[in-house]
């Protein structure tokens, strides 16, 4: 794969990279750091990608690993003041988008991650299994649980 093709594929995945990193790291500066590291890592490990059509899944997995490391370095306790998404919406509470955003952001990460990957990014259960390195049954149970938690939150 040439640098040009690699760049083209990265740019095609840009929205996905932004949404996934933001769902995990929750602030722009950390997302920019993470995506830069992920791109460099992916380019370095390009030989490990066996088929070009799996590029997006493969790149997402690298990004998630980078984000996890960043979370680890952050000490895992997120200061809510740093969080761009606060618990108190600044728009009327009947705005469904904001309610859903808050509900999603308040999910435990392991549920939020699979919800974002499945419903927003459109990855299949099998893809998610490979991205996160967890069994398929775990993906499904986390999706089920995540949906249930979102529903409870939005109905409250």
């Amino acid at each position, binding site marked *: *794969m*040439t*640098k040009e093709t690699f*760049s083209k594929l*990265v*740019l095609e995945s840009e929205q996905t*990279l*932004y*949404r996934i990193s933001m*769902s995990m790291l929750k602030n*722009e500066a950390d997302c*920019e750091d993470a*995506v*830069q590291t992920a*791109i*460099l890592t992916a*380019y370095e490990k*390009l030989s*490990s*990608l*066996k*088929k*070009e059509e*799996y590029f997006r899944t*493969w790149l997402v997995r690298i990004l998630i690993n980078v984000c*996890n*490391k960043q*979370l*680890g370095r952050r000490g*895992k*306790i*997120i200061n809510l003041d740093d969080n761009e998404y606060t618990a108190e919406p600044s728009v009327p509470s009947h705005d469904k*988008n904001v309610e859903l*955003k808050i509900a*999603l952001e*308040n*999910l*435990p*990460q392991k549920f939020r991650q699979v*919800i974002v990957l499945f*419903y*927003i990014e*459109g990855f*299949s*259960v*099998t*893809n998610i299994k*490979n*991205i996160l*390195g*967890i*069994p398929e*049954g775990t993906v*499904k149970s986390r999706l089920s*649980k995540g*949906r*249930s938690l*979102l*529903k409870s*939150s939005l109905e409250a």
Partner: protein
Amino acid sequence: MKNLDKKMLNNVYPEVPESFHNAVISTLDSLEAEKPVKFKKRRTTMRIVAACAAVAVIGTFAVAAAATDFFGLYATKRGKYGLDVTVENSKQSDSDYQSMKLKFGYLPEEYKTEEYESGKSTNYLSMYENEDNYFNAWIDYTDNYHDDLTNVVKTEETEYNGHKTLIITFKEAKNTDKMYYSTLKYFEEYNCLVRCNGTNYDELIKITEKVETEPDTQPVIPKDVLDEDDVPYDRAITDYLKDGDGFRDEYFSGNVKKAKIGESVDMAVANYGQEAVHMTAKVISVKEQDNTDGLDLKDFLTLGGNDSLYYRYFNTDGTFIKRDEFTVHEDADDYDLGTVRNIVINKHFYVADIELTAQEDIDDLSTAFETEVYCIDVDNKFFYGYYTPDYEYVLKIYGTNINNKQSIKKGETLNVKMGFIADNDTVDNAYIIFSAVDAPNDYYQNYMIKFKE
């Protein structure tokens, strides 16, 4: 909430901001141009055992579009033992697939299963007695269909009732005489293949001759819901293990907390949307058992969500099968059938008694607390217990029976049991891991308890 509103979810995160886009562009610009990387072609064998074949496999490999005036099912030899199978549909498929079901004009009695008889499984069938006697069949949808096969020693092309059919003979390995067979019968009018696999050639041919497919009464399957194939990229196990979840990060940074059997550990858990509350967790004992005494069989959970793995490890009377023999296949490619070898693993079944005591009321313990098992070997590689076709490390076979919405009041104690299977090589280095999450703060705590001192 079966149908989350995708449009709403898409609007949760705003468009890519300029600063993010600039960060991407600047990183791409900084990359040094290198020689194009040649992709390794993926090799698969078509040898499917029942545990893996119980779900309909949908082949969705993209195929390089070749200029062709022909439509149909094609087999192209590759090397000495390789075979490429492709389908070029004669009509454009619609955005959605019509669900199809199998219709067997002939099926030996011993191949029929309860699910098949009851009509529950309409698009696959799986009968497995042992490695020398199995049969399975399913439907593959053929849009952009392509599969690479290895260990192919003979290919026959024929036609049954006007449907092109491939009959493929596989040899298991160069150091064995075992053969197995597959047929692919192409139903062009429905853009699907019926795939049959088995160990008895004559029965397979009889079944294939008479098998048909017809539209199912179920709703059509949207294309984007079909599972894609596995991402086939290669990673060294050590690379894989150094990435991943919070426990691994803690372990490799030397910060993982250790505890002993009998020791209470304090953990903060959080109900959804609430402040963290505290509980203590303790492993009371870990005992080796030869059977499932004291365990409620209906609570046995397996990784596949069904109890088929239970019967792999336990006899019907509940006694544990301590010795397992596996056939491992190695090194097959286009010019080599590879070899098989038998390995014997001696296994142990352990049951851990775990006590959880709430310091405050907890509404739903199941969302915030998990137990897992890991094995850590001397090179600091470790494995999350999960089943692979060839061998297992530490396998959690019995859940912690914490049900959904399990609440626990302040001062109450919940006793749970957890069963796991470890083989001789791993048992000395296996750990129970307690993981608790404080949801609003995304704070994870992990403790590891060595269960064989």
